[in-house]
């Protein structure tokens, strides 16, 4: 007998047509799956009642694939075939991954994404993630009693196209129909926002095991909009454990410890940290392999003191994200806490003080992202109640543009634009009779292409031959709801079109994203100067080509002396245009313009005469 759930009035589904949808938080350390049951978002547990699934996959010699706790348990015995934190490899090339040398894996260089050699052959991060997702899918289908209609999968807000595409591919490989990829902070806001019926500016403070993310969201009239994101990819709960570990060494006056003892003390450090969440002091005791005995007490005062700088470190990116959004701490109506590390009282307190209000923490910070994804999945699968038709808006983290003459970036979609979005801009040809155009899609905030990231290149052919500047090429960028970009170039008179789906072979690391953003701000003046210089250079080149083409046709209109003067002006301009003195280029351009003024006037007269010759006045007047 199938088990039923209560639906909204009038929404009862026909037998065998239940729209079973789940939300999946595909995390670096742990993953979760959640669904909406009888109107309530719940995380689905495994047979043993555990809701977290460690994001660990082991490809054993016996051909068996272990996922989760089983894989984690064998990690130290079989490190090479046990893949942990695969999320860090998604959509990444080998050189994008930090500390490759120190990882126990046998990396295989592959086109685009890095791959790992295991006892069961070469596996891509997409396949490893698919094994995690597949495990959650089986759990969800057993829990819901049927095949899933679809799933919403969460990704960090800073994930680029390659990383999003890889996540989507992994879900498809796991047999999941992806309803949408959803940014993690947005999912957290949904879990809180809808439940509490909130409106206004919200901050999502996500302190996980190894990463910190801050997002500023705007909730208005049921629309979720990510205004800005920021963070630190190398800051998380593990750093707090490490501070405690160092403190233990010092407090117990230990000499340098063996790797085995270090692991034991690190575990004790983590336990003490968790104990202090609800207690005032934590006893720490351990017998080391060295024969030494550790027996110390960590009070919450000491813990707060030794981790003060870590907590402070999260507030820098927080300030910056607020500034990016053009807001201050007082504008924030609520702060959503995500990630197990936000359970620490000193983190709660510091965040509370910074924003001048108590953070929202009545949902489990480990589950909040999965719960929000489940709510979104339920709506997208069509199980919506009256009044639930809200939209979901996210933003793109870095500007998208194309390269123009002189290696300059022309931004087509600016950073922090809400998605889905489509923007078009018209471009033209640079040379007479130009019939093709190479388009170079770039991502970043800088004015020069060489400082931005190249995403893709494509070509538009079949432009009818015209004089320079006459053709109209409309370039359209479209970013879909999952944050994936497609670019189209279309010649307006003939309708010739070229398009490309942007699947960059390498992704950007979040450090790179942060660095590119920082660069964009700190180089703004420098860039403006260089841009003006490049523009002058491009203009000079255009002017020289125009004069030379005129000389080819109408050189007879100039006396030898005049011709010599024009040639001298051209030579002068050519001499200075590759330098970096914009004034000199402008002056030489002026000189050439003046020097050819008379020439231009004569050419004009000549063409007017040609047009008029042999015609009577009356004909012209009619």
């Amino acid at each position: 007998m199938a088990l039923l759930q209560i639906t909204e009035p009038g929404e009862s589904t026909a037998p065998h047509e239940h729209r079973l949808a789940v939300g999946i938080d595909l995390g670096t350390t742990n993953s979760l799956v959640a669904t909406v049951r009888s109107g309530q978002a719940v995380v689905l547990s495994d047979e043993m009642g555990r809701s977290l699934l460690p994001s660990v996959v082991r490809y054993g010699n016996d051909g068996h694939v272990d996922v989760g706790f089983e894989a984690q348990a064998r990690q130290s015995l079989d490190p090479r075939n046990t893949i942990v934190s695969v999320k860090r490899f998604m959509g990444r090339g080998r050189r994008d991954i930090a500390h490759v040398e120190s990882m126990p894996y046998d990396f295989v260089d592959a086109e685009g994404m890095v791959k790992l050699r295991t006892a069961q052959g070469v596996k891509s991060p997409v396949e490893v993630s698919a094994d995690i997702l597949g495990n959650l899918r089986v759990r969800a289908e057993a829990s819901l009693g049927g095949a899933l209609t679809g799933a919403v999968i969460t990704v960090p807000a800073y994930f680029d196209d390659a990383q999003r595409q890889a996540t989507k591919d992994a879900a498809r490989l796991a047999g999941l129909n992806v309803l949408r990829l959803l940014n993690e902070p947005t999912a957290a806001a949904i879990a809180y926002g809808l439940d509490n019926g909130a409106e206004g500016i919200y901050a999502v403070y996500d302190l996980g095991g190894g990463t910190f993310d801050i997002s500023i969201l705007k909730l208005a009239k049921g629309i979720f909009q990510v205004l800005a994101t920021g963070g630190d990819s190398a800051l998380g709960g593990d750093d707090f454990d490490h501070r405690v570990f160092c403190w233990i060494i010092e407090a117990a006056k230990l000499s340098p410890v063996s790797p085995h003892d270090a692991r034991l003390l690190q575990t004790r450090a983590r336990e003490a940290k968790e104990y202090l969440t609800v207690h005032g002091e934590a006893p720490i005791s351990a017998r080391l392999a060295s024969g030494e005995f550790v027996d110390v007490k960590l009070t919450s005062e000491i813990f707060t003191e030794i981790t003060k700088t870590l907590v402070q470190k999260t507030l820098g990116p927080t300030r910056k994200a607020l500034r990016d959004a053009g807001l201050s701490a007082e504008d924030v109506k609520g702060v959503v806490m995500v990630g197990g590390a936000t359970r620490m009282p000193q983190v709660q307190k510091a965040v509370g003080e910074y924003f001048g209000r108590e953070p929202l923490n009545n949902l489990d910070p480990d589950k909040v992202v999965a719960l929000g994804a489940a709510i979104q999945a339920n709506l997208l699968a069509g199980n919506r109640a009256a009044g639930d038709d809200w939209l979901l808006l996210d933003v793109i983290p870095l500007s998208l543009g194309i390269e123009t003459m002189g290696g300059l970036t022309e931004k087509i979609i600016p950073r922090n634009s809400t998605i889905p979005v489509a923007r078009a801009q018209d471009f033209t040809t640079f040379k007479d009779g130009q019939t093709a155009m190479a388009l170079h899609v770039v991502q970043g905030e800088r004015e020069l292409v060489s400082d931005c990231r190249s995403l893709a290149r494509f070509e538009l052919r079949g432009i009818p031959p015209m004089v320079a500047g006459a053709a109209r090429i409309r370039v359209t960028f479209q970013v879909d709801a999952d944050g994936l970009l497609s670019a189209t170039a279309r010649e307006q008179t003939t309708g010739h079109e070229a398009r490309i789906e942007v699947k960059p072979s390498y992704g950007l690391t979040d450090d790179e994203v942060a660095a590119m953003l920082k660069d964009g701000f700190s180089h703004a003046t420098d860039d403006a100067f260089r841009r003006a210089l490049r523009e002058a250079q491009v203009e000079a080149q255009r002017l020289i080509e125009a004069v030379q083409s005129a000389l080819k046709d109408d050189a007879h209109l100039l006396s030898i002396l005049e011709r010599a003067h024009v040639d001298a002006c051209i030579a002068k301009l050519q001499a200075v245009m590759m330098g970096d003195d914009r004034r000199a280029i402008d002056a030489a351009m002026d000189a050439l313009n003046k020097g050819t003024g008379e020439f231009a006037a004569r050419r004009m007269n000549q063409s007017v005469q040609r047009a008029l010759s042999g015609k009577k006045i009356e004909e012209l007047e009619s």
Partner: protein
Amino acid sequence: MSVTLSESAAEHVSKFLAKRGKGIGIRLGVKTSGCSGMAYKLEFADAAEPEDVVFDSRGLKVLIDPRSLPYLEGTELDYTKEGLNEGFKFNNPNVKDQCGCGESFNV
């Protein structure tokens, strides 16, 4: 004859109603569809229709439209767990046979 909720069903219905924040009770019904002729309907109820038959069970209102009532007389709504799956189950004495999945039935 009446329609009732088991203790476990009543507990879950109260919880879901509280979470939802509105609603006067639940509506049970049958509709003609499915592989064996009839299918159950289980919804939140925001208002009673004039013709509704209303049962009180464990402090909760159970609304049933008069056309569905003959097929549901004597039914107890239960909430059970089967493996990882959990949800509501109709213990309906009127059912003669049902499809393999139990989602539709015949009287």
